[in-house]
């Protein structure tokens, strides 16, 4: 065997060994998403604790600028309430908020104490000093936690402990975290200790699959269903879904895809059968209404193995129908 051949064998063999070695390490020890590539999803995910059951994201700026939003703008209620809020806080939702990330943390009982389970991270332009002054006026306290300003408010009417205080943390110059004081502290710790949802391989796998969506949600269905306090009769009838994701793109219309991963292939097949029946019913009900017919036709059921996916597209024609109905009601109201 010549040296040239030996080198070739060594190089190709090394590629195989390195590849297999990486795979074995990833299988047994897990591989953070940050290895090789930047993490999928928004940067705010670094503030979401690793045990989050659901993570949702909305690009508020995109949605606010969408044709759909512009279309329904004139039907919104008066500006008086909005102006009052803006005067007090200096915050204009339409112009100042860029993105919002919400997370559900499986702590305590979701049904009886929902405030403990939610974390909201909003990115945008905030006047921290103004918000702080307003909070102090209303009896809030301002503290520092890990070098971040934390405004906490205790509801005197409730007999809750200090742990249940609601809090707003200014975690970055353009990012605030909102939730119970414990949750906001957990968010700051998650980023500092690098123990956040970005290291949750299953969750990030779903986030990574999202494409061209300006609003989405992914999570463990069984984790929230178990804590939602549903009656046993209903809970036992629910499909055995483990993971779910919903992603949508809003512009002129709305398009999106709902995905579910079940605990086994039989459950997935059952779910597909149920959805097939519902789709057939929807198509029958859509009748001759052009917009609804188009919506019904856009529903596509797919998936194999343990996966079920339903994609949809709400066309502009559906909103034409809704807009017509809303304008008709307004006109009737004006005549009366």
């Amino acid at each position, binding site marked *: *065997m*010549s040296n*040239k*051949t030996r080198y*070739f*064998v060594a190089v*190709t*063999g090394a*590629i*195989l060994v390195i*590849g*297999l070695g*990486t*795979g*074995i390490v*990833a*299988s047994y020890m*897990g*591989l*953070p*998403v940050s*290895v*090789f*590539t930047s993490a*999928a999803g928004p940067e705010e995910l670094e503030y979401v604790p690793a045990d989050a059951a659901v993570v949702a994201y909305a690009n508020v700026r995109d949605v606010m600028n969408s044709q759909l939003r512009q279309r329904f703008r004139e039907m919104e209620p008066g500006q008086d309430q909005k102006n009052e809020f803006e005067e007090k806080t200096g915050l204009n939702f339409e112009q100042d908020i860029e993105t919002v990330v919400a997370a559900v943390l499986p702590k305590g009982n979701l049904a009886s104490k929902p405030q403990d389970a939610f974390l909201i991270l909003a990115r945008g332009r905030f006047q921290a000093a103004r918000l702080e002054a307003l909070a102090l006026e209303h009896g809030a306290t301002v503290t520092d936690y890990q070098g971040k300003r934390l405004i906490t408010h205790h509801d005197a009417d409730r007999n809750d402990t200090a742990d249940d205080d609601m809090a707003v943390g200014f975690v970055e110059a353009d990012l605030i975290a909102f939730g119970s004081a414990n949750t906001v502290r957990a968010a700051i710790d998650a980023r500092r200790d690098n123990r956040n949802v970005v290291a949750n*391989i299953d969750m*990030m*796998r779903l986030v*990574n*699959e999202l*494409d*061209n969506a300006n609003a989405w949600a992914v999570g463990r269905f069984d984790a929230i269903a178990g804590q939602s306090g549903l009656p046993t009769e209903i809970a036992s009838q629910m499909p055995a879904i483990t993971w779910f994701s919903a992603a949508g793109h809003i512009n002129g219309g709305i398009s999106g*895809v709902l995905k579910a991963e079940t605990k086994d292939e039989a459950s997935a097949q059952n779910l597909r059968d149920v959805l097939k029946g519902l789709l057939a019913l929807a198509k029958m009900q859509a009748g001759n209404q052009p917009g609804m017919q188009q919506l019904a036709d856009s529903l*596509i059921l*797919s998936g*194999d*193995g343990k996966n079920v*996916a339903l*994609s949809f597209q709400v066309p502009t024609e559906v909103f034409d129908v809704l807009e017509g109905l809303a304008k008709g009601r307004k006109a009737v109201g004006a005549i009366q």
Partner: protein
Amino acid sequence: MSFWQASRRVFDLSLGEMLWSRRTIFMALVVGGPVLLAVIVKVVELFGMSALRVNGQRVAGFGVFGVMIWMLFLRFIVPVLGVFYGTALMADEVEDKTITYLFTRPIPRGAVLVGKYLAYLACTGLVVLPSVMIVYFLLVPPAAIAGSFVALVTDLGLLGLGLAVYGAVFAFVGAYFKRPLVIGLLFAFGWEQVVLALPGYLKQFTIAFYLQSLVPHAMPSDGVASILQGMFRESPPIGVALAWLLAYLVVFLYMATRVVERKEYVLEQ
């Protein structure tokens, strides 16, 4: 010299010859295609777009890798390499009129074929399997590696088995027939493709039928041929498929060895 020692000597000699022959350029082009495709998919995804969509749904990472294993490696690259290398094991020596030099050595004739066959396996395996590995790491996001690694190992094993079985069949074709390349191409891209799309038992006389049943990825349903095949698809159990593939391998390799040992090769002047 024993049969296996002789095979080892032929293997050493043939591996270098195979790796640095003109045929390797062809192999590099064939195997480089999927790597290039994976790079393009990666670049497209880096720009926030999706390279492949089925029913309006994004097919990402491991899904694209699965499609590549199905459509490119198992259905094209493995049979094509099997045909070009397998049929040439003995036919090249006959064509170059160098077979006399091998047969005048004090080694069993069958060892020549077995040594060359092992060199073919090493040569194609060392090119195809690393390219699959590169395609995998280009397409599959790090977060999905843990969940899909077993499927990758299955794929690598399957491709190795495919190369071995196709190689054995075409080694026999190359040793027995006068125009082995034409017969090999007709078998791989004529007989196998047609019979797989037809209902009935004839598909049991193909290699692709058994290989397909072992693929850990779902069959893509976006092509007319795949839909047709899916309609008539009967998957044999894994054990049965493996047993048939091993039987093909052993029987054809044995037959090829017997042919080489008994056949009188008449060199054209």
